[in-house]
């Protein structure tokens, strides 16, 4: 089996305002897949659909080879899930939470849980209700990793944590992935963090998947160009134009996707010239991609 998550033509609707539309997603085995999108773009809803917590109106979902939601329980036994918010009983202690959680997962590794508990400096008798945000984050990650899952689904696991704790949590995750060859699906706003560890990127906006591609392609394909005497029309352009802006009457700034150095020639044909090509980091690429996607949506009269 080469894909751990396969979603095709997924649709889901809550009232008139919000919907997931035509969503397809492929997470290859062994990938660390970064799921990006602004607030309210449908990331958490997609995760809940993926785990069988919501029922789709249309489309298919397959996780670890099991059809979801019908066989979600089979998939869930092999998934470590870290939700957005703490999902543990406030009145239990750290140790009681570990024992409670363990009861649901036959493969739960006690020794690993103990090692991580010490590594994360969590006291056994600490009440859950009195854990700091950072301690809760570490506890949730610890429980998910000690399950020895084949797939980790992390919904903003480190957002809101301080940098020291973020590093600890991410290091533990990276180590686990290397040892167990697990697949990771990680949703976050922390773009620079994603940039370090992810090798695949999926970008959502307004309930749609705007782009899904390997990180390296995402990073290298989106460029900002300075174009002199830029053409007014886009006849047979070999790249996708995400945005254009006139800096002065002679000079335009374009953001393009799918850029290759040979494409300078296309500008030459209309008497234009590419003066400079700038690289964008993941955050800039992400922002430009959303700008481009929204402009297209409006142009097509959709929504």
């Amino acid at each position, binding site marked *: 089996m080469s894909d751990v998550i396969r979603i095709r033509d997924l649709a889901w609707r809550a009232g008139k305002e919000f919907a997931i539309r035509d969503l397809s997603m492929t997470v290859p085995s*062994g990938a*660390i897949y970064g799921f990006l999108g602004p607030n309210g773009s449908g990331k958490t809803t997609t995760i809940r659909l993926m785990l069988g917590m919501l029922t789709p109106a249309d489309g298919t979902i397959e996780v670890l080879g099991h059809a979801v939601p019908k066989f979600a329980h089979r998939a869930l036994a092999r998934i470590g899930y870290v939700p957005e918010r703490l999902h543990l009983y406030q009145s239990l202690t750290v140790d009681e939470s570990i024992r409670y959680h363990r009861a649901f997962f036959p493969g739960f590794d006690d020794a690993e849980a103990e090692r991580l508990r010490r590594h994360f400096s969590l006291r056994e008798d600490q009440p859950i209700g009195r854990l700091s945000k950072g301690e809760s984050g570490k506890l949730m990650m610890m429980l998910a990793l000690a399950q020895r899952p084949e797939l980790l689904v992390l919904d903003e696991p480190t957002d809101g944590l301080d940098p020291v704790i973020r*590093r600890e949590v*991410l*290091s*533990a995750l*990276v*180590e686990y*992935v*290397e*040892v167990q060859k697990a697949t990771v699906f990680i949703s976050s706003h922390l773009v*620079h*963090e994603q*940039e*370090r*560890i*992810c*090798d695949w990127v999926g970008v959502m906006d307004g309930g749609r998947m705007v782009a899904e591609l390997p990180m*390296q392609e995402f*990073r290298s394909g989106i460029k900002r160009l300075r174009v002199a005497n830029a053409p007014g029309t886009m006849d047979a352009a070999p790249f996708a134009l995400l945005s254009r802006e006139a800096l002065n009457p002679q000079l335009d700034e374009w953001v393009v996707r799918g850029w290759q150095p040979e494409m300078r020639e296309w500008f030459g044909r209309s008497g234009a010239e590419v003066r400079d090509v*700038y*690289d964008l*980091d*993941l*955050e800039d690429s992400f922002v430009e991609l959303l700008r481009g996607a929204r402009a297209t949506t409006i142009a097509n009269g959709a929504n």
Partner: protein
Amino acid sequence: MFTDIDPRSPTPIYAQIADRLRLAVASGELKAGTSLPSVRALAARLRVNPATVVQAYRELERDSMVEMRQGAGTFVADVGAETKAHERTAAIKRFVRQMLTEASRLGISPADLRAALGRETSSSESL
């Protein structure tokens, strides 16, 4: 050694790791036979994808800078003086190119840059 790994740089992370190691081998900071951190340890320390570290090590192995021994780890190879000199030159070139790109973005001309570089290096040599 890897404090300057920058995920926002246009240079891919694996290339940054490989470049840093090349320079360390070329400068003698890493001697022949030294073992490099395991993929797991380095990935965890840098919080990067383990595949990125593997990619960096593979590239160095292809260039005969390191040897990957099955089950034992990755070791610095015995690199000749000529290769070391070549690697040092390449590292300096990368550094200068980066500086030139940055300068042109800031609107600093190559002539101004050369003049400033001359002044700064002579004043730091007289220290």
